[in-house]
């Protein structure tokens, strides 16, 4: 087990940040598994600080007007739409 065990409350907190509801059973199981997985990740402590010099270049193109998906196509996979717009749950 990890020296910084993860408890079900912490799993619940992370799940809230990630917007994923969990069952009580999943919370318990994930807490155990996360302890083991995160303790394996601790081995990264041994990795030396390493400079990386990626070759980065900006990729640009002229801003030209062109056809895009039409509204009906863009909305086709949504479960709920209204007046040509996506309909989501209420904000609060």
């Amino acid at each position, binding site marked *: 087990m990890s020296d910084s065990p993860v408890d079900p409350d912490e799993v619940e907190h992370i799940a809230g*940040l990630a917007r994923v509801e969990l*069952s009580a059973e999943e919370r318990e199981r994930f807490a155990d*598994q*996360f302890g083991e997985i995160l303790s394996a990740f601790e081995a990264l402590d041994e990795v030396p600080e390493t400079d990386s010099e990626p070759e980065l270049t900006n990729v640009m193109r002229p801003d030209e007007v062109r056809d895009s998906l039409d509204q009906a196509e863009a909305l086709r996979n949504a*479960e709920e739409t209204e007046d040509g717009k996506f309909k989501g749950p209420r904000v609060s």
Partner: protein
Amino acid sequence: MSENIYITETTIEGDEDGPLAGRTVAVKDNISTEGVRTTCGSAMLEEYVPPYDGTVIERLKAAGATIPGKTNMDEFGMGTTTETSAFGSTDNPAAPGHVPGGSSGGSAAAVAAGEADLALGTDTGGSVRCPAAFCGVVGIKPTYGLVSRYGLIAYANSLEQIGPLAPSVEEAAELLEVIAGPDERDGTTRDATDHGSDYEYAEAADGDVDGLEIGVPTELLDGADDRVVDQFWNAIDDLEARGASYHEVSLPSLEHAVEAYYVIAMSEASSNLARFDGVRYGTSGGYDGNWNEAFAAAREEGFGEEVKRRILLGTYALSAGYHDKYYKKAQDARAWIQQDFDEALSEADVLASPTMPVTPFELGESLDDPMKMYLADANTTPVNLANLPAISVPVGDDPGLPVGLQLVGPAFGEKRLIRAGSALA
């Protein structure tokens, strides 16, 4: 068919003429096909029908290929066995009762069973090479940027590439010729001709290994099964007999590849999969409550357990207080691994290892133990972290026990890998 290779069987016709005319190419179900549902192996996208084709699909059609179906896969590419699919597991045609590997298990199984002539998979940490090895076929993970990802539903953008699966190296090279090349709709693509290569991959499949210098990273043999290691050395002996030579080399950074890979992949996944909230596509469930509650309920229902595990661990690794400990150290490891590969490839033409340290698991064997599954990716994940090309070719003479040999080359060194790999398959 009994193996459960396809999630959706269909017939998408290509043009009449072209280099792939008359051939079938099965496509992994995370690559967008216009008008044909694309599920990513997830209940979340069970009904999702893309309104456009991915670039590789356009290129397949223009090359005359026929697409016979969308293949089964681990949910969103997250798995090494194809068992995390919401559409059930796939049996391994080369070793019945065993997993086909993953995450592109359906694509490899389609080729192994002769259900398709060729197939496309995607490789984020080994997802083309692992199933190729487990099903006894050839798989190529191209250099990062060689193949457009436009229309590929993202799991971990900085790591993944679309790659070919085929019965032989030459046929895999023919398919790579069709899909490779820059695309203005994917700003990370690069032109191989700017990097010392051309796109004539198939003609490189001449099996000429005379004078080839092979480096064998000892770290990638250490944890492997004896049976796998025996077959690996038999294949190296075979290459030696044909004029190649080998030396052992140590790449200490590779000991940290699995951890670095999972931290980076999970972190990117936690961000990429935020889009699945059930509003624009996916399962919304019609839940009550405010939007956070409704999204959380839809995601609980639509995602399987492995996907939730990775989203949560990625969220954790990026959260305040843990970012430096996990994500930043994983990026250090990534840079270190790149340096080690550069150095090793300055002394060798290619690096060789077993593709997978194990033979295929029995169906159901590894589902309960995520760490066991992650550790099976020890030999494939370093290649994605280093943005390099690699090929897996079947070796060994036991038909019930598929073993793959992996060759890794320098960036845009696909032709070198194809030439060397074609000596074996």
